[in-house]
């Protein structure tokens, strides 16, 4: 078999239009995912740093939302809801991209 050119695939250096479209959508979603998953715990952690007991008590834990302590709701329901919306957003963004790809 004649030697063919090697394929180059790198998530951060996309080489074809298809990969470019895919990684740009994926990067957006992963960034949002990261903010959601780790931003919220970091926020709760930072807000709770002044608590002398080291338990992380802060305005976030004292606020009530729908009857929940806010820090509880954010993780128990907020994040999960966010993930489902992110999956939906991924599908929407991808559909838009692939339509554009097909037209061009």
């Amino acid at each position, binding site marked *: *078999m004649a*030697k*063919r050119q*090697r*394929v*180059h*695939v*790198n*998530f951060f250096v996309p080489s*074809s239009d*298809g*990969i470019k479209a*895919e990684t740009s*959508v*994926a990067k957006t*979603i*992963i960034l949002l*995912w990261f903010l*959601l*998953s*780790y931003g919220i*715990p970091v926020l*709760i*952690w930072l807000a*709770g740093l002044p608590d002398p007991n*080291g*338990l*992380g*008590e802060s305005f976030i*834990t004292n606020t*009530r*939302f*729908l*009857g*929940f*302590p806010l*820090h*509880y*709701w954010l*993780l*128990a*329901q907020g*994040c*999960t*809801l966010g*993930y*489902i919306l*992110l*999956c*939906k957003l*991924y*599908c929407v963004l*991808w559909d838009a991209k692939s339509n554009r790809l097909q037209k061009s």
Partner: protein
Amino acid sequence: MKKALSITLLISILLLLASSAAFGVAGEEIYQVKQGFKLVPAIIMVALLCIYVGVGFLSKVSSTSGYWVAGQGIGKFGNGAAIASDWMSAASFMGVAGLLYLKGWFGLGYIIGWTGGYVLLLCLIAAQIRRFGKYTIPEFLGDRYNSHAVRLIAASVTVIIAITYSTAQFKGIGLICGWIFGMDYKASVFFAAGVVLSYMLISGMSGVTRNQQIQYVVLISAFLIPLWVLLRKAGGSGILPQIEYGNIISGLMEGKTAAGQLDPEATTALRNAYLPWGKGDFYHFIALVFTLMVGTAGLPHIMIRFYTVKNEDVARRSVLWGLFFIGLLYWSSPVYAAMGRFWNPAGGKAVADVIILSAPERAGLGSAFIGYLASGALAAGLSTVAGLLVAGASAIAHDWYATVFKPDCSDRQALLVGRIFTAVLCGVVILFALNPPALIAQIVAMAFAIAGNTIFPVVVLGIWYSGSNKYGALAGMIFGLGMTLMAMFGWMAKIPMFGDQGLLPATSSALIVCPLAFLINILVSNATNEKLDEESAERGDNILRKLHNLPGYQEEDDGTNAFSR
């Protein structure tokens, strides 16, 4: 073939008999709910089991491709429900509520870890795996890296994950059977094994898939319906329990329970559990969440679901629907934990894994409701074990036996090996389940650590980095697997460093190990780039063309493989 089937059936009948002989032996106080035989729940459970086995029997399979992935024709709702049903194991049904009960706010890490991972799966893996379109993850890795060694290790990891994960399910199934029949825990583990085995062997995965949609409906209704009654008993209006329990949580933080106001000391203890770092610190929280997420994205028995859908669009949408179906459960399991605290504020580890039964029982919910709930949990455990044992057995039969050791074997031989190893795996799982090392959700978290440290890095690099080669893959996988197993045995040996307060807890080792596994894979790949033989480079490139729809893909000549179509 028939002979092997009847022998395994005989074994499962023997198991059932052995466990019933141990009937009536006084149970150890594993949990504090009422002991003894319960008629109504037993009838509900037996009826449900008959439906499962019946459906499995009606959809008996004879060709291997049916046994492994149920033909590629399942839609987004169906596949979403199957993902959710595979997912909704005894761990999410009983284990998560147990951990939330025990660990308060900290336990929520399990919820975001086990839902957030799907986003990663969707972004990085789902569509590409569908484009690849073959049977198993070890097969994907073996083809991409053109290496039998990679395939063998991946297959072994699949088996280890299946064993760990199933151990947790068996603990759950055992506790449920023990609760319904008043059996000793050990006897009910054998009983559960008998049920699982006979179900598994009669139906292949085709039956399993069809069942999984029925099972999801049974599961989620069993889990949700008692909540309305429970919340009404706790003084809520019982319209939307998933929102209303917020007031109960806020009340618990002020010491308000079913027994009235707690004394100040108990109130502080309860309040601390619901404050962020009362039961674990920031590092352990992040490490746990990260581990569960990469583990979710790296679990072979979840990934295998994407081979079974029509096309990649359906693959994407089935992640969305799967996550939604899973979300329904996870919005509800904290309610059980909160209810458990409300009625039993001082309970400890002994009651945690059965809190979904104990809370309603203390609240005086009728035994029919609790029986339905228990049957749901049982179904959750059963369907997960079924999926896992198939994944484990297929790793052995397909990736070890049919591809590496005996490439010229017939379909029937491979199927036979698959069935035999299903039984063998079941035996190993029983051994571990008789003496469970941790809470259900913790054992499962260890399985996730394995997946996140070994499978996830090598799959992601395999898809997204053409420079990664077999040497890097091997180095990364061996490192990941070694570290995770070390942490697991360290946990069992009670070494502090690997315990749940240590630097590298077995349940959350991936925050440290997973990035290192990525790094090792990349470094070793680059260092050995010159050494890589022409064929491996060419074959890897060819797979990459297929994964990313690049021009120039050539259909592989798949003569080595009895399952090619």
